[in-house]
């Protein structure tokens, strides 16, 4: 007897498997269209421009470290994990070799995320008088908590 794999909902059987497969491919399609939306809005082009601009030692006029291909790859993977409909970030570079993704409304309402050479992602946010900062592994994708902070920055007055 063929054993059907259990779905997320816990149901087994041919129909449940078919539905689960459909949900999975729909989710992948949505993620792909979000990535395409970042492409349309120029985010990936900005990433490549930053990489070309800052891939040598001292690009800031000081001791800046170059942006590596590894960091570029991590930033692309990280952006691909964003939920559909997110406003695209401004892309930048930091002198320690990180690529940054920033959502900015004013000097008091801003979040900056750094994708660092070690594969870690670090963020800091100012939302009025509230401050948030932390770290996560970039290849794990964006967390719900971080999506929430970004939404607080880009939405509202």
């Amino acid at each position, binding site marked *: 007897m063929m054993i059907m794999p259990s779905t997320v909902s816990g149901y087994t059987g041919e129909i449940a498997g078919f539905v689960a497969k459909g949900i999975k491919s729909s989710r992948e399609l949505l993620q792909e269209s979000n990535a395409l939306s970042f492409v349309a809005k120029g985010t990936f082009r900005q990433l490549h421009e*930053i990489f070309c*601009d*800052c891939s040598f030692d*001292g*690009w*800031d*006029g*000081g*001791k*800046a*470290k170059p942006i590596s291909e590894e960091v570029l790859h991590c930033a692309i993977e990280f952006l691909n994990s964003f939920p559909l409909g997110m406003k695209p970030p*401004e*892309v*930048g*570079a*930091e*002198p*320690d*070799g*990180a690529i*940054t993704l*920033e959502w*900015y409304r*004013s*000097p*008091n309402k*801003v979040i*900056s995320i*750094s994708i*660092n050479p070690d594969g*870690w992602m*670090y*963020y*800091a*946010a*100012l939302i009025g008088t509230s*401050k948030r*900062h*932390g*770290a996560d592994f970039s290849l794990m994708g964006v967390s719900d908590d971080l999506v929430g902070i970004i939404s607080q920055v880009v939405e509202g007055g």
Partner: protein
Amino acid sequence: MNGFIAPDELLARYITSSKWLHKQDQTVTQNAFIPPDSELSVTRHLGLTERDIWIIGIQIATDIDRHLHGRADVKTAHVIAQRLNVVPRPVVGNPNHASIIDWPPEKDARKMCALEIARVAHFVAKPEEEV
């Protein structure tokens, strides 16, 4: 050069990347204030004319074949408020060179310091005419 940097002294961070400016209001991003390692280079205004400050910046940008967009000015007091310190580090061609030191080891904490400094920094665009 005076070894003590007073809290009301102005420090300039040269902006050699357009990506260090927010498009909508020309304020400086925190990226400009992230140190490459343990120190961040700045130039003290002390005893310099506007022209002198721009000449140093243009030289720095020319050395790396970059365009100088301007500079971000910030008072030393705002840097110290982040529990950082500023020390003189004169170099050839820039006796007013200084370094912001004592950065926290955690990158996210560094970013928070940089965001706070960027929040109060004042961007001055490089004049169009020759300096």
